[in-house]
């Protein structure tokens, strides 16, 4: 037996090493369970403690050196940029300051829109934010394998990071935190084959799962063939995976490939918005609640003040327009319901004005509707064309006692528009001269000439009974 082991010592060691690792693999596969909450198949897998330990050791072994290399590189870069390459810095600083001022104003506007969007989302009972609490982190390393697209960050649990937090840049999403250690964390990038993110095509609103392919490109899989999907269409996060907030940019459609195994399905290759191969700084979304910095709050206040001034000016303009409208004549539909009382902007009734001398409420004059000219005037219509041939060229000016205010519409020659009254008409019964008030419902007597030849005075015209209720 001893000679067997000594003779085949090398093979025994090899087999032992292989067997141990195969058993380790089997244990990992058995213990790996999908996280139900993620909602994305293959996304979010938890491992046993022993595997976590191996990863921790590997990370502890490698990341300090990576951090050192990264820090040295940063230091050298800083030495160059901060001391050796400072030409034209003042001019650039001035220009940048102007840009910052402009961007702050733009940001304030955007923040206002964002808050409006949040209010709407609250109404719809969406518990999603638009502005999120983020933690910046530096990328210090990769997996070193082209088959596993993983990044290592210089921050970990001590900075409040947790697994399954979304990692983004200003351009778009990067991935999610997979393993988080004390000072470092591992990001599973969206172009890894084991990653998964719910996405939606912005234009066609087709939803799918984003994951990487063999070439390291993110692709949306399991989509039924659809000719509407065209290159250039933006791809956004769908928000259903409970990792990435909804609406973050993912990239644009680069091309569409038919699924080789399933002919009716296509894979949409996505050109990522974030530069996944060349990342330095990333943001980790640590909370989905809205967080506004003091500067953002100040900008928002400025925006609201500016907006308040605009609203006040708008109210003044409307008030002036209303006053102008009161002075100018206009047509009022008498069928329209008369408002019981005037109401203010809040819908509360306005109390009538009090006469300071009498202490009594000042009566509000009723709105007198203006009589509309008849569509087909005849001799019975008030102010209609007189049937008398002698009256063709004359205009009945009404009785001398009639005031201009309560005068009935005057007759006009055919083809001539009736003159527009300069003042609002008073209501029936409010005529200044008793007896001249036109009684509602009293029709002009047939045969009575409303116009006299040679300017002969005619009796006071009686308004015809309106056909359509127009008085």
């Amino acid at each position, binding site marked *: 037996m001893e000679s067997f082991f000594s003779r085949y*010592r*090398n093979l025994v*060691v*090899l087999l032992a*090493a*292989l067997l141990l*690792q*195969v058993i*380790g*693999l089997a244990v*990992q*596969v058995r213990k*790996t369970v999908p996280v139900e909450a993620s909602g994305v198949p293959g996304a979010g897998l938890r491992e046993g403690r022993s*595997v976590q330990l*191996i*990863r*921790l*050791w*590997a*990370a502890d*072994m*490698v990341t300090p*050196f*990576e951090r050192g*290399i*990264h820090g040295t590189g940063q230091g050298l870069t800083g030495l160059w940029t901060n001391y050796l390459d400072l030409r034209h810095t003042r001019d650039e600083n001035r220009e940048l300051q102007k840009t910052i001022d402009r961007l702050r104003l733009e940001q304030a506007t955007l923040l206002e829109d964002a808050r409006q969007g949040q209010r709407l989302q609250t109404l719809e009972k969406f518990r999603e934010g638009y502005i999120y609490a983020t933690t910046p982190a530096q*990328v*210090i*390393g*990769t*997996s*070193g*394998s*082209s*088959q*596993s*697209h*993983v990044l*290592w960050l210089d921050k970990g649990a001590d900075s409040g990071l947790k697994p399954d937090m979304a990692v983004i840049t200003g351009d778009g999403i990067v991935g999610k935190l*997979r393993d988080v250690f004390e000072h470092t964390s*591992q990001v*599973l990038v969206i172009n*890894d*084959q*084991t990653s998964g993110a719910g996405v939606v095509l912005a234009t066609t609103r087709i939803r799918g799962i984003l994951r990487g*392919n*063999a*070439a*390291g490109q993110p692709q949306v899989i399991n989509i039924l063939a659809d000719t509407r999907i065209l290159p250039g269409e933006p791809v956004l996060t769908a928000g259903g995976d409970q990792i990435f907030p909804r609406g973050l940019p993912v990239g644009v459609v680069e091309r569409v490939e038919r699924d080789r195994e399933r002919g009716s399905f296509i894979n949409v290759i996505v050109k990522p918005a974030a530069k996944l*191969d*060349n*990342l330095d700084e990333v943001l980790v979304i640590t909370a989905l609640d809205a967080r506004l910095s003091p500067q953002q709050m100040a900008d928002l206040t400025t925006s609201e003040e500016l907006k308040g001034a605009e609203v006040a000016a708008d109210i003044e303009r409307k008030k002036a327009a209303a006053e102008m409208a009161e002075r100018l004549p206009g047509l009022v539909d008498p069928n329209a319901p008369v408002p019981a009382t005037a109401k203010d902007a809040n819908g509360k009734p306005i109390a009538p004005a009090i006469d300071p001398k009498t202490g009594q409420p000042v009566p509000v004059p009723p709105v007198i509707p203006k009589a509309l000219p008849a569509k087909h005037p005849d001799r019975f219509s008030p102010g209609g064309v007189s049937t008398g041939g002698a009256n063709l060229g004359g205009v009945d000016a009404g009785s001398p006692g009639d005031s201009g205010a309560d005068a009935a519409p005057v007759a006009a020659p055919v083809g001539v528009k009736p003159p527009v009254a300069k003042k609002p008409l008073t209501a029936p019964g409010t005529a200044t001269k008793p007896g001249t008030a036109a009684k509602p419902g009293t029709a002009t007597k047939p045969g009575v000439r409303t116009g006299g030849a040679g300017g002969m005075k005619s009796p006071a015209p009686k308004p015809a009974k309106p056909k359509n209720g127009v008085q």
Partner: protein
Amino acid sequence: MAQVLTPDYRRDLEIRRYPTYIYILVPLAALVLQAWLPRLIGRFAYMDLPLLVTIYFALNRRSPIHGTVLGAVLGMAQDGLTARAVGIHGIANTVCGFLAASIGIRIVVENNLIRMVLNFMFSLLASAMVVFITRVLLGLEFQWNWLDELLRAAGNGAIGLALFPLLDRTQARD
């Protein structure tokens, strides 16, 4: 040529030894660089430095056990940095380390051409084993691109040409 492929010379049969810190520093540097260089050159990092280090020490130590253990440790550390199961690269590097040491006993490995060919072949073998373990043993969905694997093998062969003479300088002198 026959002289090159047969262990006629006593020098070729000598077991090369290295200072202890070299056994620690070189694999560690390989891991660090493997994780850091892709940040600079992106997806064009067609190399596998831990595998190259495994092959180098296995060839020069001419000890299958040494090659097996070194391959297992480096491969598992490599797996620890990825998002995949720990042991995939471990098994691949273990087999490569064992075979490299076994071959190193039988042939002269001073020749640069032989080194390049060996690196190319072992890289292809490692890639094939990774695909086999992932798709067959673990039954996971895994896409791979043979062109990428060929480029990586070629890259390993080219890097080995520069790396191996550099590492030769670190061996302990008697």
